[in-house]
């Protein structure tokens, strides 16, 4: 059979968000893969430069609908570092509590999506039903299911009371039981296991060379986790294990995430039982001294990096977000090569892609010359004299 190129995306049932994967296939085997981004660019970084530090917390929350707490925590950590604020320990613990609950919700969601991509809809329905439990816990704590809005510069906005603690422990107990069942199911159901073993191989050296992050990296046998390597919040005080797998395939990624679920339950229980007394936040100044800072955070998908540069006003001069999905794209292309067409959605889903997190720039391509150029929002404005364009045109042009 001759080589043909099939487009997976930007609109495809396997993709929950728009991204274009171009596959050159020969029969059922993928010979080459190419990822094209930019279908979901929203210009959030530029927008952040026009908003105050407090307003930006809520903007950062909207980078992602799943790991919303990851982005705000990473951002407020950076601003706190700029201001030299010491967050009260109770505030840090509540922050970590929400962070771990978010990890549980994200991993359960991922397990469902991965099962759905493999055509195992029963597991999908079950995990998403149980995910409701952790969503309810997050609602109890913060009042919201998705955008928790619990972080503020200098601490957290809401405290946790005894009644809530009890409910959280109850929910975690139920989830522990269910996760045990999923561990059993995900690693023993023959049709599922046969689909995910030896699929999307990413050897250890390749994983390091291509800068993979998070569970994708840990499934290739590299013990790397920001919570251990560069502890933020109060992770240095919390006992937990780093989960890795040596199989380097999708099965390994399932195993790592399920193990992390179990560790997260332990961390939540530890936090609830050892919640320190005291304030939950300190007052933060409105204006920030000129400086620049980088903040790292272990999001459910991997390392999240925020870079903030301040200029003495109440607005940041530059805010740069490096979401974990972006770091995993090069590794994904490596994994997709020489796989079967049937495995494409599984491999792509196995990095837990969050496309809208990763869309940070626009690439323009000249079709006639074949050259391409990466432009920032500011460049586009300058080049196309955005401010001078007459605004009286009628759509469609």
């Amino acid at each position, binding site marked *: 059979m001759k080589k043909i190129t099939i487009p997976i995306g930007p609109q495809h*049932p396997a993709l929950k968000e728009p991204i274009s994967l171009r596959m050159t296939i020969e029969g059922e085997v993928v010979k080459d893969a190419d990822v094209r981004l930019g279908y979901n660019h929203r210009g959030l970084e530029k927008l952040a430069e026009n908003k105050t530090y407090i307003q930006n917390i809520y903007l950062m929350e909207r980078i992602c609908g799943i790991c919303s707490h990851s982005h705000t925590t990473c951002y407020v950590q950076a601003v706190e570092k700029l201001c030299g604020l010491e967050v009260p320990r109770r505030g840090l613990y509540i922050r970590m509590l929400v962070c771990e609950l978010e990890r549980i919700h994200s991993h359960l969601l991922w397990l469902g999506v991965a099962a*759905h*991509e493999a*055509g195992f*809809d029963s597991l999908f329905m079950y995990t998403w039903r149980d995910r409701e439990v952790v969503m309810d816990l997050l609602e109890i704590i913060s009042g919201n299911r998705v955008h928790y809005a619990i972080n503020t510069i200098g601490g957290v906005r809401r405290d946790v009371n005894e009644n809530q603690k009890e409910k959280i422990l109850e929910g975690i107990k139920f989830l522990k039981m269910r996760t045990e069942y999923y561990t059993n199911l995900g690693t023993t*159901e023959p*049709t599922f296991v046969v*689909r995910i073993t030896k699929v999307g191989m990413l050897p250890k050296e390749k994983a390091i060379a291509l800068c993979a992050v998070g569970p994708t990296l840990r499934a290739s046998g590299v013990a790397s986790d920001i919570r251990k390597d560069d502890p933020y919040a109060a992770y240095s005080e919390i006992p937990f294990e780093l989960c890795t797998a040596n199989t380097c395939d999708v099965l390994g990624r399932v195993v790592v995430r399920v193990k992390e679920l179990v560790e997260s339950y332990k961390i939540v229980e530890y936090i609830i039982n050892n919640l320190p007394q005291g304030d939950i936040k300190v007052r933060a100044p409105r204006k920030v001294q000129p400086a620049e800072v980088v903040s790292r955070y272990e999001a459910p998908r991997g390392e999240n990096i925020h870079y903030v540069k301040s200029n003495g006003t109440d607005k940041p001069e530059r805010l740069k977000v490096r979401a974990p999905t972006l770091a995993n794209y090069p590794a994904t292309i490596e994994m997709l090569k020489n796989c079967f*067409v049937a495995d494409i959605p599984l491999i792509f889903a196995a990095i837990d892609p969050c496309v809208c997190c990763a869309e940070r720039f626009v690439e323009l391509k000249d079709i006639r010359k074949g050259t391409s150029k990466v432009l920032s929002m500011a460049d586009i404005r300058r080049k196309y004299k955005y401010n001078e364009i007459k605004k009286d045109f009628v759509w469609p042009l």
Partner: protein
Amino acid sequence: MAVIKALVYLLIYPGILFLFVYSTFCEWFDRKLYARLQNRIGPAYTGRNGILQPVADFLKLLFKEDIVPEKADRIIFSSLPVIGLAVVVTVGLYLPLWNVDVSIPSFNSFQGDVIVVLYLLSLPTLIFFLAGWHSTNFFSTLGGVRVLTMLFGYEVPLFLAILSPAIVADSWRLAEISYFYQKFPFLLLFQVTGFFVSVIALQAKLERTPFDIPDAETEIVGGTFTEYSGKKLAFFRLMTDIEMVVGSGLIATVFMAGFSGGIVLGLFKFVLKTLLVIAILSLIRAACSRIRVDQMVVFSWKYLTPLAVLQLLISIVVKGIIQ
């Protein structure tokens, strides 16, 4: 009188009207059971407990926009759903439901009708392949190729398993096979392996999980049916439903002693036995993940076919003993 009886047989029971009503009921049963197994409620609004949902889906699809791709061959593209529907409805006529006298062969029951039924049940697979091929879409073509690849996997074990009871009954006529097992029901105990092999092969024929490879939504969009819409898709869906009914009817005929006892009792037995087979199909669908096409072929030749051959050997030995 004979003409009227034949017309009723063709058009009402067990012809097109009965098959339409019963296949939509079976789709509802399958969907509801599948949903309950997944902790969902399934169809709930149209009719009592959503029992009319498949009919509503069918009618709605009939009124939807019908698109033929520019590059597709218009005649073949449009005629395939109708041919497919005609083929599976014809299979329904050969099931020994009613109007069948064991002693006298008739137009719908004769020596060798089991072969005819198996042949007719192979045609939908070819129709799916042609539908995918003539859609001129990458996803459809890939789906069509997968349909054919799978055919080489499940067809042999299905034939071997279905023909084993016929060997013991010493007949190639469905009515005689079921009549034989009504007389000696204990002989069915030796056909258990064949029963499970044929159920799994039927699952593959109907392209349901774990064998829903040709229309794997997350991989190749709609697979074979990517370009089909409106009336044509409605016919294809009805065809798959009827195929499920007649496929399970065939298994019920040869492995569950058929549907004796006239029109009322026969209908009752038919419903009961086919629903049992469909329930097993739903269970398999809920308990499995989709496998790859190469894994499916390997599974068929490594496990399914040897089991079917084993069933054949058991049948030959049993036949030697009872003679």
